[in-house]
């Protein structure tokens, strides 16, 4: 068990940077910039857009079923949360800022848990600041996209798992899986972390199937409870099709940085179900192999799967990519083993520039057509994919280590 670090560890000037960043986003959310960004397709998907959230709440308070019609797709839990705390600017600004703060702090905590008992947490603060300053996380928060909240949930769940606190992490993952269904694939690595801890361990840790089974059962229990709660909140089962159904059936073809929207805009109707199935099941393939290969370091498997999900989920936003790029910071040991870090970095840089540019050319200027933006999403997908592949290779490689004059190859 890694020991919790005392609060004293935080009292250092380095903490100024995250504090400033939080303050900055708080003020920006209240600035006119936020409404301007709010409906940007790259920052907020139909599942996470704040405008739609407000619409849903408006319906809910007017007594109309918000899940009738295709506008509102947030989870009933989110709905419940925001009927408790009204989405007035100040409150939501505070909420999103706090969420990001928590997320960043969790990142630092996870890092410490990984390197414990070595207690120097300079890097922890660095990670936090990077997370807070990365545009991929910064802008969605300013746009009040609920994907930032999802990130916070995920990191919090991961943190609890890293600190071996079973129930909190399971509950959080369950809650998360209501707002973004694919995250449920993260259960196996999460369970492994709960069993074996966040540190790489040699020799391979013994995973006791009984405990694993108990944990999974507990998770299932939470899911059932939360489903019931959602049913209670929504008043009908309509939400299932509108939230979970949407992630699988893709009823709303609003563009996003992901690979789905244009594919299914152009898809022939008779093949739609088949490809929907393929695309939905595709991330599932990787769960078992990753978990098996990285038994010694479940946290790394978690990271890789998170990357795969955020690359191939149906309604991704930039903050998904931002999250796993931040997670990459937890594994500095693999940096030296990257094969083409420059290529990957440049891909990311170009994607980051091309996405908004081509989005503008297509939808605002009208001088480019949909293929422009599609091309930029392809570049983005390529960048994300190559990042994962790089990390995977480096992760495998780093277990071998290197010797001057010796090279590692795969047969």
């Amino acid at each position, binding site marked *: 068990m890694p020991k919790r670090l005392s609060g004293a560890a935080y009292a250092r000037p380095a903490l100024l940077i995250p504090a400033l960043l939080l303050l900055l986003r708080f003020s920006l959310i209240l600035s006119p910039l936020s409404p301007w960004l709010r409906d940007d397709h790259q920052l907020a998907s139909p599942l996470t857009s704040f405008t739609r959230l407000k619409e849903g709440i408006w319906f809910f308070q007017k007594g109309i079923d918000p899940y009738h019609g295709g506008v509102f797709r947030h989870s009933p839990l989110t709905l419940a949360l925001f009927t408790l705390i009204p989405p007035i600017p100040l409150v939501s600004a505070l909420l999103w800022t706090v969420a990001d703060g928590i997320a960043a702090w969790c990142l630092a905590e996870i890092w410490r848990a990984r390197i414990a008992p070595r207690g120097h947490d300079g890097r922890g603060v660095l990670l936090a600041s990077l997370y807070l300053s990365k545009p991929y996380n910064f802008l969605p928060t300013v746009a009040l996209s609920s994907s930032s909240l999802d990130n916070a949930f995920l990191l919090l769940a991961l943190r609890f798992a890293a600190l071996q606190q079973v129930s909190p992490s399971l509950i959080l993952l369950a809650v998360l899986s209501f707002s973004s269904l694919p995250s449920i694939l993260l259960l196996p690595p999460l369970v492994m972390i709960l069993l074996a801890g966040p540190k790489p361990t040699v020799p391979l840790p013994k995973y006791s199937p009984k405990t694993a089974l108990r944990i999974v059962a507990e998770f299932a229990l939470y899911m059932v409870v939360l489903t019931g709660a959602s049913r209670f909140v929504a008043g009908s089962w309509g939400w299932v099709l509108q939230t979970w159904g949407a992630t699988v059936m893709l009823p709303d073809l609003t563009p996003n940085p992901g690979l789905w929207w244009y594919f299914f805009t152009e898809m022939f109707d008779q093949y739609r179900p088949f490809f929907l199935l393929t695309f939905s099941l595709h991330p599932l393939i990787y769960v078992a192999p990753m978990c098996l290969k990285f038994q010694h370091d479940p946290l790394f498997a978690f990271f890789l799967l998170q990357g795969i999900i955020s690359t191939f989920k149906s309604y991704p936003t930039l903050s998904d990519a931002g999250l796993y790029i931040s997670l990459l910071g937890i594994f500095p040991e693999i940096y030296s083993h990257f094969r083409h870090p420059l290529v990957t970095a*440049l891909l990311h840089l170009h994607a980051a520039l091309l996405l908004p*540019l081509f989005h503008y050319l297509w939808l605002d200027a009208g001088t480019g057509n949909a293929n422009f933006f599609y091309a930029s999403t392809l570049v983005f997908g390529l960048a994300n994919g190559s990042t994962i592949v790089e990390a995977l290779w480096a992760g495998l490689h780093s277990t071998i280590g290197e010797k001057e004059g010796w090279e590692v190859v795969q*047969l």
Partner: protein
Amino acid sequence: MSSISRLKSFFKPSAGNDKHVARLQRRKRIYTSIGRVSPYLQLACYLIGILWIFAIPLTELGKGTYVDENALQPGQVSTYWDWAEVHAADRFLVVLEGMREANASHQERAAWLKTKFLELGISTDTQAYTFSTSFGEVHGVNTYAFHSSPRTSGAEAMIIAASWTSLTGDPNLRGVATVLALAGFLTRYTHWAKDLVFVISDGYQDGMEAFLSTYYGHEPKTLSVQPLTFDSEVVWTALSIDYPGHSFSHLGLFFEGLNGRLPNQDLFVCAQVIARWTGGVPVILHNTLDELRPDIPMPDWLQWSGAAGNWVWREIVNRRALKEWEYRAGNVAEQAGWMATGRASGVHGVFHQFRVDAITLFARPATGPHGFHSLGKLTESLLRTMNNLLERLHASFFFYLLSSPSTFLKIGSYLPCSVLIGVGCMIGGLRGYVDLGWERWYSQKANDTKWLKRPRRLMEGVGALSAVASVGAVAYLHASSRLFAPMLAATSPLPLLPVILTFSLLPPFIVLLRPDSKATAPLAPMVKTCLLFSLALLIAPLSMLNFPLSLFFALLAIPLSLINPSSGLLPFLLLALLNPAMLLLFQNGRDAIRIAVWDWQVLGAYALPLACLIWMPLVWVAQAVCIIQE
């Protein structure tokens, strides 16, 4: 068989580990060669890029213009505009000239126009507007008339506009008269599929900007304006008629819009075809006549060269191909100039930001032979061509450079020159980044040099870059303040000298304030690498958005990327000459900047923020690279 097997063996070596060794070594050889040739590669990119720029005006690269949209059918209608309408226009003109003599106020003019439209039975109204700029307030009164065409659903419209001031600066009286006559004439016919909106905008571009921002509900903060009294409909086409002189010889087509936006090429081509074949008017680009320059006689001091000299003169200097090249170069240069500075070449330019294809028909003042008759005729024909439009014009015809009224360059044939230079910067950046990761370490006992990895100071580099760049905001705030505006009026640069010196010399020194670190790797090359990366990332995507602008930055990038890290004060001062603040030294420069500020505050043309937030910082960073001492 054997050859095939050899081929196979080349691609995937024989079994055993040695094949992997071979592969690894091959890869390293490739890397080595890349590393070795990269400097030459970079220079080659620059060189080819520059050569390509000179190749752009070549006739070989040009392509004949054509109409893409089949529905348009330019010039296929028989027009009805006749001398009666010309007479009507003349009568309008008499009154207009009277008003100019009596220099009537905005309100009087608008009121008269309104009554005229009323008499024609078109519902009309006026719209007063006020822009507040750092130079003071800009007032004006627009007049607009709205004719809903018979049997149409009233969802689409075409705009026929004339600004009170011509792009030459003179009052655009005949333009206004033409629009009035057209209003009386066009509304007599029932074949319109779109409603007709006639706008007489006050001022030059400000009036139309005010009208359109209310039309599309985009009022900026600096604008106070009356609302329109009819519903705004979808507009695809707009024509602005500019006829300052008594009569005209050529029809000049102006098409560049604000911030480098262009209208769809089909509109331009239709105007060109119709003007030539229906109106019988020769068409030119902008205001430059389509004549090749006359032969330059050989100067006396070259007479001694005799036959050889004559040959050179005949075959090169006065060669037709060269003259052709110069003419085209002139055209392309003018278009590029408008687009790079982000200014609109006419009133039409205000439309493009709202996805309306618009051009200005400029009647080039001359002593004849054309007048209202041909202008009205071709306008009617052009409007009826655009009336045929069933869908938006095709998206892929917005990227073009026009080298002459009838030839253009496709994006593929001009894009490479700026992209190549961008790639050059990228290569330079990569090399710099890789080299920074290694240092040569000489060991006494082994008596050879070893290469050791060393940590790069990427963070510090980026930090320095952004620190210097952030000063741009200060420059911007100052330039757009009421403090700065009066200075521009000055006829001598003296009052501006402190500003110039401050903004061209001081900001780079910020990097000297950095906390000193014990890292072994030098900082200056890292900053330069960051600069190269940012240049590459700026140039390549920008070339899609606004090619001439990206070309400008590409040209700026070449000197910036060739400076040596910490090379002292001389390059520092030389670089200062590239700073836009230097424009303030010259009268034309001051005027240009005044126009830029005005355009930014009234029309939202990007020249000012661009110069302050991108151009200046780039130069500053380069300067900083010179002065950073390790």
